[in-house]
């Protein structure tokens, strides 16, 4: 989980979608591969727009890609 409390399942989802590469996902959502790497590692929390774009690529709702756990 990232320092912002947001975790994601992008790596698993990529694997389930014909082992989609980070570059292919990056091209589809119009960001650099480095940004996809950072999101997967939890080092960057994407904007709402980018999060929706990623969810759209996998054709699933946003909450199935990202989850938020608030700090107690």
């Amino acid at each position, binding site marked *: 989980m990232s320092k912002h409390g947001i975790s994601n399942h992008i790596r698993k989802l990529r694997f389930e979608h014909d082992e989609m590469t980070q570059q292919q996902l990056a091209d589809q959502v119009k960001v*650099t591969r480095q940004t996809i790497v950072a999101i997967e*590692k939890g080092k960057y929390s994407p904007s709402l727009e980018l999060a929706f774009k990623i969810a759209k690529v996998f054709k699933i709702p946003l909450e199935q890609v990202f989850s938020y756990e608030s700090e107690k």
Partner: protein
Amino acid sequence: MIIVLGIYYWTVFERFNSQVMTTDEQLQFWSKAILIAIPLSIITKIVVMIVFAISNYLITREKMPSFEDERDKLIELKATRNSYIIFGIGFFISLTVLAFGYPPKYMFISIILGGIASEIFDNLSKVYYHSKGV
């Protein structure tokens, strides 16, 4: 870039120390030195970026992105903020130096050092945010 600016300012200091100048001449000398440093740093930055892009491609075989995405812009903004803080501190010190009656050369030295330090902090910030996350 830091090396080029370091060498440039070193030669400027050498020239300054070898001459006897009035206060007006000193102000003119340092103003010219800083004005020359601006295009010099821009040209150096362009050359460094070209060399980095070529060497990066030769090593990784991966082309550098041709655009900036939201993460790049955020990192750029945060790095610029950090460098402005450092430059602001340098500028504040330069005014303080002048206010306490030191010769104008110390004011310009403070501005130059602040500028170089802000450039270093800008680059270090980018490296930090890219590796540790933003």
